[in-house]
């Protein structure tokens, strides 16, 4: 293959990673101070009066919260690093919302061990799939604030899923609920070549990694 042509003097967006931070940046990633917006579709604009969050599926219970009910649930603020499969990582991002553990409290998951996966569904039709184990035990939240302010629509507001230990496409924007299922099913990006699980520390970007 021909030697790659280098554009003289082209630097591109800042992507230098200070040495001290290297252990916080997964392989193949670089740190950004921006917050890039990547969308697979137009920004939905669901009014809060019509917004709700549901959990249903192949188990006994059905749960639903209106926006007001959701806002009254126990909330916490977390500071996490996020890693996008397009190679940027953003450190120390601050989010506020409801732990998925809190949301799943009303479901007797121990009584239904065969139900092992969840599919997050969103306004606009986006979906992503996750093992239940990866959203329990303090690993995931449904967040409605970023940096102390209401989550902006282009970043997923009014609420998005946050699962920071996996690539950020799993942190579904405009999330409206979870469908709990026995069998895993690839979501929007997983079905066109992205990794089914997506661990950034194992660089699981694409199917087969």
């Amino acid at each position, binding site marked *: 293959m021909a030697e790659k042509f280098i554009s003289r003097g082209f630097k591109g967006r800042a992507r230098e990673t200070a040495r001290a931070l290297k252990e916080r940046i997964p392989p193949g990633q670089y740190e950004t101070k921006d917050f890039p*917006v990547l*969308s*697979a579709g*137009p920004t939905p604009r669901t009014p809060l009066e019509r917004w709700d969050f549901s959990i249903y599926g192949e188990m006994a219970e059905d749960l639903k919260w209106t926006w007001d009910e959701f806002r009254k649930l126990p909330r916490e603020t977390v500071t996490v690093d996020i890693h996008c499969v397009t190679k940027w990582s953003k450190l120390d991002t601050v989010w506020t919302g409801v732990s998925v553990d809190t949301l799943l409290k009303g479901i007797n998951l121990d009584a239904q061990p065969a139900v092992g996966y969840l599919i997050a569904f969103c306004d606009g039709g986006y979906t992503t799939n996750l093992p239940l184990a990866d959203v329990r035990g303090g690993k995931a939240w449904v967040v409605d604030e970023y940096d102390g302010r209401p989550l902006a629509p282009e970043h997923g507001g009014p609420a998005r899923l946050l699962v920071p230990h996996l690539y950020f496409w799993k942190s579904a924007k405009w999330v409206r609920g979870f469908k709990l299922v026995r069998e895993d099913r690839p979501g929007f*990006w997983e079905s*066109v*070549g992205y990794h089914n699980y997506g661990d950034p520390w194992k660089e699981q970007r*694409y199917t087969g990694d």
Partner: protein
Amino acid sequence: MKDNNLRLDGNAAGGLLNEIFPFEITAAEATCGSCGRMRPIGELMLYGHGMGAILRCAGCDTALIRITHIRGCYRLDLSGMSCLRIAADIQQNP
């Protein structure tokens, strides 16, 4: 609206589509399987920015074409499109 101004159309996916199809597919007409609207692919709304190209119906936002290009392999999901009309005199790629 600010983010609407970021929106591009199928013309901007022309280069990627040229890698796959041996003709200028932005001129071909796609029928949306959801609302029935039939328009050239150049008029579809393009989203994606880095993970892949998603081309959506301008009328109802249904994804008609989803393309990723990963390690040299293309994957296309055309399930949102119910028909693709390619005119007999459609321009061939050079």
